[in-house]
């Protein structure tokens, strides 16, 4: 039937929107604080931030040892 396809599709859209409306949301300030917290807590384990030396980063050129 011509009308029923659109009705079925619209029902799905409405069902989806109802689901999304039910979501429990947190305040932006809370979410932002958590993101900041995570970054700061893990900064020491983040090589580009800590400045990785040649000895620990396999991609950086090794320093050449010279005999004195």
């Amino acid at each position, binding site marked *: 039937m011509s009308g029923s396809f659109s009705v079925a599709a*619209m029902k799905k859209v409405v069902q989806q929107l109802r689901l*999304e409306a039910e*979501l429990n949301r947190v305040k932006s300030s809370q979410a932002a604080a958590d*993101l900041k917290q995570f970054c700061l807590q893990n900064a020491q384990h983040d*090589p580009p931030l800590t400045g*990785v030396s040649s000895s620990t980063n396999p*991609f950086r050129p090794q320093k050449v040892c010279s005999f004195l």
Partner: protein
Amino acid sequence: MDQTFLVNVFGSCDRCFKQRALRPVFKKSEQLNYCSLCAEIMAADGLHENETLASLKSEAESLKGKLEEERAKLHDVELHQVAERVEALGQFVMKTRRTLKGHGNKVLCMDWCKDKRRLVSSSQDGKVIVWDSFTTNKEHAVTMPCTWVMACAYAPSGCAIACGGLDNKCSVYPLTFDKNENMAAKKKSVAMHTNYLSACSFTNSDMQILTASGDGTCALWDVESGQLLQSFHGHGADVLCLDLAPSETGNTFVSGGCDKKAMVWDMRSGQCVQAFETHESDINSVRYYPSGDAFASGSDDATCRLYDLRADREVAIYSKESIIFGASSVDFSLSGRLLFAGYNDYTINVWDVLKGSRVSILFGHENRVSTLRVSPDGTAFCSGSWDHTLRVWA
């Protein structure tokens, strides 16, 4: 005009199946024959249907409005405001440390192996190559039966790779070090879509693969049997990218598409749990923030954006007036503080995720950057380009 119905047909009514005098009723181009009673009921139903459609549409509109209201109510501060007191990042030096040459055409996709050393890349020329990024040696190479291999992924065990593209399939190749064995002989076809494969990823094991396709769907497959375990419908156009949530945060993944939407899915139910539609063009890349509470996206609208899943909203836009070309691929550094993004203007921009500012711009590629991934231990990242090469930066 005369509206006399000429009853010249007597037979079985298409609705009640009773033997009656029938009138022809036209719906679109279809002719049905109803008895007079059913004809009247159908006419009334038709009206009812139209009412239902209209009421559903208006309910949809009001729900959308309500969603926006709910999201706005909780929006009390911007991310960069919260990050004002955070120490600024120092001088940033990252250079190309390795250049991987060998593809005969555009590099379209790459993925790291968990051993932080090997990586797999795929190209428009139909070749899929496994490299040792320390030595730049090619360890394996396979030629696909199609060109434009748009997706490739390394299995968690490091023992297999998956790839696909214009063949509409995702195939798994076990990696063997036996020189006498032909890699292509052990090929296993896992996924079948009705349009090109745009992205693929193993889940936490070698046993399941998640795919995204130009047919507008995503799907979860069992590798051994090739069985479809779950399909994900909801995008209104080609799906271009996907990323699995970090294993600690549960069974969800995010996808982005040509419908400008980023959608978060529950892998078990196939249900879309959240959707975001703030980009102004195709979303080429999506990547979860390391904590799993947010994800970033890169789009043809020349911006990258950060969406927080618990706040259910976009919380940052990474853009500059001078950046006018699309972002093709994004990835976070280990702590989530940096967002590396490859662009169609051949550059890679590095963004301070918290402050929203650009930290660095990396030059080197001689054509579009099409793919970018940070290594598993965060010491480096690899970028692939239409200039036929891959570069490892550290």
